[in-house]
């Protein structure tokens, strides 16, 4: 009985911690935006500015723009300050992809200095399915998940104790 209660307590604590989950950690698209003074969002397609796949990953940072940034000191991942410094060192007229548009100008226009503009890319979710508007989701998501998680925990605690 004791270990079942301990298990349920652990579950309650774990799920309750969801409510305190920190916001998204800073990612490179956000660092780029902050450095050039833009706000372009962080769709997965923006990973392709530096990576050859939208999933990212260390061995996939092979796009022309990031290959040039390597010469400016960006030699590894997980280093926002190195990315910021490399962009600051970037020559205003440098054009990594040879499309006649300088890299910095493309970044300021939410473009892609490594090639063709990325556009929105694929959409996820079943076509036409949207439970709530994005704004409403932001307002309600934490509370809805909290209620769901705590409800689940409550059910488990109840039955674990009963047994």
């Amino acid at each position, binding site marked *: 009985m004791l*270990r*079942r209660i*301990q*298990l349920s307590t*652990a579950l309650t604590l*774990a*799920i309750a*911690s*969801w409510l305190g*989950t*920190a*916001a*998204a*950690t800073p*990612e490179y698209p956000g660092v780029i935006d902050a450095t050039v003074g833009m706000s372009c*969002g*962080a*769709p*997965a397609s*923006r*990973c392709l500015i530096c990576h*050859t*796949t*939208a*999933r*990212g*990953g*260390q*061995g*996939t940072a*092979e796009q022309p723009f990031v290959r040039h940034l390597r010469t400016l000191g960006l030699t*590894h991942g*997980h*280093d*926002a300050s*190195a990315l910021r410094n490399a962009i600051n060192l970037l020559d205003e007229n440098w054009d990594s992809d040879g499309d006649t548009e300088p890299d910095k100008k493309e970044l300021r226009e939410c473009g892609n200095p490594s090639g063709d503009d*990325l556009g929105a*890319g694929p*959409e*996820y*979710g*079943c076509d*036409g*399915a*949207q*439970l*709530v508007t*994005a704004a409403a*989701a*932001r307002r309600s*998501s*934490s509370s809805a*998940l909290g209620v*769901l998680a705590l409800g*689940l925990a409550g059910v*488990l605690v109840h*039955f*674990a104790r*009963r*047994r």
Partner: protein
Amino acid sequence: MSLSSGRAHAYAWMIKHGFSKCGSCHTDPSGGETLTAFGRYQSEHFLTMGGADMEEMSNSSKFLFGAINEPADVNLGGSYRHMVLYSASVPGVPAEWRQFPMQLDVYGSGRIGKFEIGASLGVAKGIQGNAQVRAAEINKEPGEGFIVLSRSHYIGLWLQENTLLRVGRLNLPFGVRIPEHTLWVRESTRTDRESDQQHGLSLTYTGGRWRVDSMLILGNFQLNPDRYRERGYAATIEYLLNPTLAVGVSSLLTHSQVDALTRVENSIRYSDGVLLRWGASDKLSVLGELDLLKEGGRHTGLTGFVQTDYEPWRGLHLMLTGEVLDQGLLEKPGVLPVRGSGAPRYGAWVSIAWYPVEHLELRVDGVMHQDDVFHGQAQLHLYL
């Protein structure tokens, strides 16, 4: 991303106990997610610490601790995973700690006569920019709100006692079905159980010493528009040399008008490989896989892993995993080989998994990859 996603359990190392056929313990004949009643009994008997002395399944091993008796031919389950990640520092950058719920899914399956139906449903939150978990998204949440996921859903028909035909969104039959979805073999072949499932038609045969799992891939219909969907096939054939040694081959070939991840147009992607599952003793198992890789815009590459799992006491697993990845050199002029792209990149995992009581797994991993900082992972996994 405050929430990526994880997977439920499929323990390929169970072969060391003579459970070579995944369908003994899972309703999916190739393993993963929903447990059968026999699987629940075995999880208490062979998975959990101290469970070896039990002769009958206790209520605590059943779904929801036995609070609800599932109807005959219905199996239900669920998983909650919480992850704590540590990334070591590099000069000028402090170490980083993150924690997030990785998975909250419920799943189940039922059989009505010769028909089988199964599905999973989960939620995730704050995944903007994450190309992984989004592939299983049902609703269209563009930002950082919460999304509803269905990783798998299918209807099936048992053509014979050991032959199942299914249509729906299914795990791709390729390689060793392991829970480590970020292992390079699963990421680079896009065959993890996190969100790489695709819609299609599947035929699974598990008779005698053979397990044959094949799938006609029609595309992920939770991804739009159609030009990003992959079509092709995936298949694994596994042969049991003896009750604790299985060898197999896998093959995958897909085509998409535009690759959803790389944006390469008219993209053909294929992988072919071999796999091994070996229960060397009742305490030691070895899993391995080696795959050839070819994806649009790259030359041929390879990936593989070997994992040894030593279980000194029932329920405590000490694991050592080695992996390699060369995605293939980019087909662009002037691109030189670097580790992971045109040259092999190596990595290692040191892991401890502990199953102290029924429904609970605690796991820590130390992940070391060439050209990357050390990552530590601590995971709490509760399953219904």
